[in-house]
């Protein structure tokens, strides 16, 4: 529920609403919304608190708990209000699609496009990704870069010219463009036969290797593998890998081992995270455990994310 759209959006997930929308909320968090959040109001078992500032959520001095909270797998409390900056709707909001034969070409082009400063966001979707969504239609039978552009007509024209050139250099072809702008992956729209196997924050330079490796594991298990990369940027990207049909325990085990070996943290509330966390950053985790004990002395809220079972 949007309770204030000018100039800050405060999305109020009161318990009633939130209880009906947990997947949508988690999806928003996992899709990178945490990067723009300015404040979260939280109820934890022992007290309520705010991660940032209430008055109006701008940056500044003082302890800011937003990223720590958002990366805690909701183990530090339940959010009931988010504040994030909004921007006026641009004159033109355009989705432009480029098709590539190989994911590595698409990734390279996507990173170069990002560096021009034109795209609002760059996403990558595998050839059959749309078929994993209940309402989806395949964009093409190739890997697709989906670039979101905004501005007035002159800026859009200049952006298209620049991005078309980059795509061409990497063997890409400009396909559709439309004002139907892509949204974040919403788990409620995933087809019942599709399995989301984890949302990982990845080093963009290792992305094509990770995609190929996961694809190989899926092939060995005779499963169709599809993926989406939301927010492809030069530094880090979020990979959303999916399998057609339920994976076996063995396949899940292989994927889990692969993620641990690659040190890829799963976003959101995953039981794999404590394994990664405990083994890789004991001091940091211990520090947050102290905060957890203060907010939730009985350790009743998502204790497994803290390595407490």
């Amino acid at each position, binding site marked *: 529920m949007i309770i204030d759209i000018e*100039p800050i959006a405060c999305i109020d997930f009161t318990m009633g609403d939130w209880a009906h929308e947990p997947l949508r909320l988690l999806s928003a968090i996992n899709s990178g919304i945490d*990067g723009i959040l300015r404040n979260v109001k939280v109820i934890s078992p022992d*007290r*309520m*608190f*705010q991660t940032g*500032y*209430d*008055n*109006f959520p*701008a*940056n*500044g*001095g*003082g*302890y*800011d*708990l*937003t*990223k*720590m909270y*958002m*990366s805690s797998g909701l183990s530090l409390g339940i959010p009931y209000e988010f504040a994030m*900056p909004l*921007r*006026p709707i641009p004159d033109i909001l355009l989705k432009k699609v480029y098709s590539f034969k190989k994911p590595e070409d698409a990734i390279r082009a996507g*990173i170069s496009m990002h*560096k*021009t*400063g*034109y795209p609002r966001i760059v996403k990558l979707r595998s050839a059959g990704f749309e078929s994993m969504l209940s309402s989806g239609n395949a964009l093409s039978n190739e890997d697709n870069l989906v670039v979101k552009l905004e*501005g*007035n007509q*002159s*800026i859009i024209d*200049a952006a298209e010219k*620049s991005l078309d050139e980059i795509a061409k250099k990497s063997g890409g072809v400009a396909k559709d463009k439309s004002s139907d702008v892509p949204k974040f992956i919403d788990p409620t729209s995933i087809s019942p036969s599709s399995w989301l196997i984890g949302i990982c*924050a990845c*080093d*963009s*330079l290792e992305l094509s290797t990770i995609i190929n490796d996961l694809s190989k594991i899926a092939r060995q298990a005779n499963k169709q593998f599809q993926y989406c990369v939301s927010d492809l940027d*030069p*530094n*880090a*990207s979020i990979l959303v890998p999916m399998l057609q049909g339920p994976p076996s325990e063995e396949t899940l085990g292989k994927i889990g081992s692969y993620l641990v070996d690659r040190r*890829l*943290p799963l*976003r959101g509330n995953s039981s794999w*995270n404590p394994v*990664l*966390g405990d083994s890789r*950053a004991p*001091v*940091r*985790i211990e*520090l947050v455990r*102290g*905060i957890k004990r*203060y*907010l939730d002395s009985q350790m009743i809220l998502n204790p497994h994310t803290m390595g407490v079972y």
Partner: protein
Amino acid sequence: MVQSEIAKRSLMSAVTPERISDEKIERLVTSHDLAPMPKVAALALKMMPDVVIHPKEAEEVSEVVRIANGWNMPVTPRGGASWGFGGAVPNKGGALLDMTSMDRIIGLDVERGIVRVQPGVVWLRLDEWLNRRGYFVPYYPSSAPGATIGGWISTGGVGVGGYKYGAARDNVRNLQIVLPSGQIINTAHNLDSKHPSQFDLTSLFVGSEGSLGIVTSIDLQVYPKPDVFFPTTYSFPNMDHVYAAMSKISESRLRPYHVAFVDGNYFRFLRAMGREAPEVGGILNIIFEGPKEKVEEELKFFDQLMTSIGGKRESDEIAQHEWKERSYELRSKKLGTGAVIGEALVSVDKAGIVANETIKLVRKMKMNVSVMGYLIDRNTVAFLPFYLTDERRWIKAISSLSFVKKFLDVANKHGGRGVGLGLFMANNIYKMRDRNTVELLRYIKESIDPEGRINGGKTVMFQTRYGIRVGPRLFRFGMNALAFIKRLYPRDKYDRPVPGGFPGGEH
């Protein structure tokens, strides 16, 4: 031999001799920041450190912290000290870590656009270094020629370029920290805080003002150098027009790189110094960067917008000059012996109201204040009023400090808040956050630093040299008393007269 002396000797025997000193001159230089304090402040605060250390590596910082822990010695990290709230100044003496000695640019990851630096690197130097490699750092403090990266990040980092690229908090990808225990940690998992996971502590430490640990290396997101960089300057008959123009810019669909304003008093100060300065109510500098076609389009749009509000576009030479002067806004402090800056964040729609109430406050306190500032995002203005001070007249100088507190009260009244806390503004935390959250923040400080050795007695509380906590009521009483004393003085005057005087003034 007293304990502090033994602690000092322990440190001097552990640290390479050329990187540690207890010379009085060095301790004196590091006993103040941008806002010089009168000697009488020493009654409550031991601002002079016992020893000054110039570390080179994180391991050395860790060793100093461990030794200081053994002797219960306070440790204060210090960057360029270009802030005025006492965050980089000891309040209980002890060891001062001069982080400007950790000034290596460790490397640039060209493919990822990430640069790794030590905290003592100065912003301007980093930008020049990046420019030679085809990159630039688009966000930095206006004090970029002297401010260190670690120092600015520790204050939360709002400044130039934030309107388009966000603040430091949005661009720091990882920090290496020496905790009060001496342990060294990375704040982000996989060294990436853009997509935080695994209990990311980056935003906790950015803005913590050196009170949770000592930053020893920083990974920053940097960007390819833009094709075009183009500053413009618009003059307005009064500041109401300037605030209206900023409001229009924040509502617009295009986003320039940086939007900054300066009031007419700033130019009065400059004229008093014999410099050429325009006689205008205020100016607005709008800076554009990016691909050529995009910049041209943005320029056309904002030119029309500013003209429609009554702005006059000044020449490109003036705009270039104003842009170059962005880091030297305190040139006029030579009229006194120093300058004190207040800093508050105010919503754009309240900027005019806060400005008018600040003017009333200025008149009441018989001061001359110039106001400058900039947009830090679409709904927020950073307001920076400054006045000239002369600590040789210490009663007047110390009583003038109450202006900063009173100004923050005005900002708070209209939903704004101070940018930072440091030592002197630590009690403002109650106006910035709810009581539950303040208690949580104090708990975090105590759990990380139980003895309060690392920049203790600041940020989440104000403590004197004797460890006595000054609460908000006592602080408010003290500040009100100082403001009363200030009002007993005649209006501020300077050694050199201000041509034309100040509005409502005596000069």
